[in-house]
């Protein structure tokens, strides 16, 4: 299979994306590929909520890292960059960093935004884009994002410009001057909804069944350890 065969594949093809990210010619083209893949993975998580909605921050981020690796990206979890960054995707000197947070309120999320912007990234042109991945269990992602972006704008020391919400992915972008370099630092805010409270009868019964099983298991365990 030669390069032409690969380049003629559909844009979402793993073979094509793997090749394109390997030879990415600009920082922006690399970051666009990373962000598109992260959005695909986020969608997969949202489409399989029963499997994922009870997982914690690290487990969810671990799934994203493995999925990025399988897609051909050099991704890692907990790499040291002035602190342990949740998600680092590299290609030569290009770096895209992601900070992942459970939605435990705006103050908690703001810590994530600050870690990403002021601590992990050096603000150089080849690492001037990143993402804040927000795992939310709350209803109404649209309202949630509006509130969150307003909070960022009102609470960060440097003026933050916010772009319009993407109508397909419900993500938003912010941009602010990086404090150490003055380069525009761009953050993609990616809300991942893990709100899962189905209201139909069969889902309610199924949830009751599994919670009853969990309670039984919980009762059995101490009895075993007491022996």
């Amino acid at each position, binding site marked *: 299979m030669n390069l*032409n065969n690969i380049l003629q594949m559909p844009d979402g*093809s*793993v073979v094509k994306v793997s090749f394109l990210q390997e030879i990415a010619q600009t920082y922006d083209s690399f970051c666009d590929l990373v962000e598109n893949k992260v959005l695909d993975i986020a969608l997969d998580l949202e489409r399989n909520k029963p499997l994922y909605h009870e997982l914690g921050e690290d487990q969810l981020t671990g799934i994203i890292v493995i*999925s990025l690796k*399988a897609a051909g990206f050099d991704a890692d979890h907990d790499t040291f960059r002035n602190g342990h960054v949740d998600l680092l995707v590299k290609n030569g000197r290009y770096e895209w960093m992601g900070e992942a947070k459970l939605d435990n309120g705006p103050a908690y999320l703001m810590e994530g935004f600050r870690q990403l912007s002021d601590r992990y990234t050096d603000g150089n042109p080849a690492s001037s884009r990143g993402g804040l991945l927000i795992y939310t269990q709350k209803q109404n992602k649209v309202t949630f994002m509006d509130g969150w972006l307003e909070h960022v704008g009102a609470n960060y020391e440097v003026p933050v410009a916010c772009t319009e919400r993407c109508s397909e992915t419900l993500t938003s972008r912010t941009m602010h001057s990086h404090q150490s370099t003055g380069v525009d630092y761009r953050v993609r805010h990616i809300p991942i909804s893990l709100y899962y409270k189905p209201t139909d009868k069969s889902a309610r019964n199924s949830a009751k069944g599994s919670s009853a099983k969990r309670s039984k298991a919980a009762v059995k365990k101490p009895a075993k350890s007491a022996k």
Partner: protein
Amino acid sequence: MINIDRLYEKIQVETTPLGLDGFCYKLVELVMKSAINHPAYTYAALTEALDGCAIEDLQRALNYLKASPINLFAQQYQYVDADGVPHDISREDLQAAMLDNALSHPEHGYLDPDFKERVYILYVADKTVIQL
């Protein structure tokens, strides 16, 4: 370097949810069976070795095994010139060719605008990263 048992355990834990474990095991076995330490494979050879699996599954399994900390495979590029002579080219050569829309011949220096028809991806395994 990674211990073979640790590698299989890692594959099982990390790739089973993605449905890639079977492909990864087969790729590891293929490399282990090789008589040389650095066997090189084309997509066609790998697809055949994996019983004609879909290329997308093959690519995802390869990507997983070439990522750190496993690093079992490395991606390389081979340019077969108009005379049929193969030349290894670097990623940087290829990046430059994509920008210029022509590849500078590794030996003669002339520009080949049809390089996309003549560049192939090879996956070169490093058997020595697996500790038995």
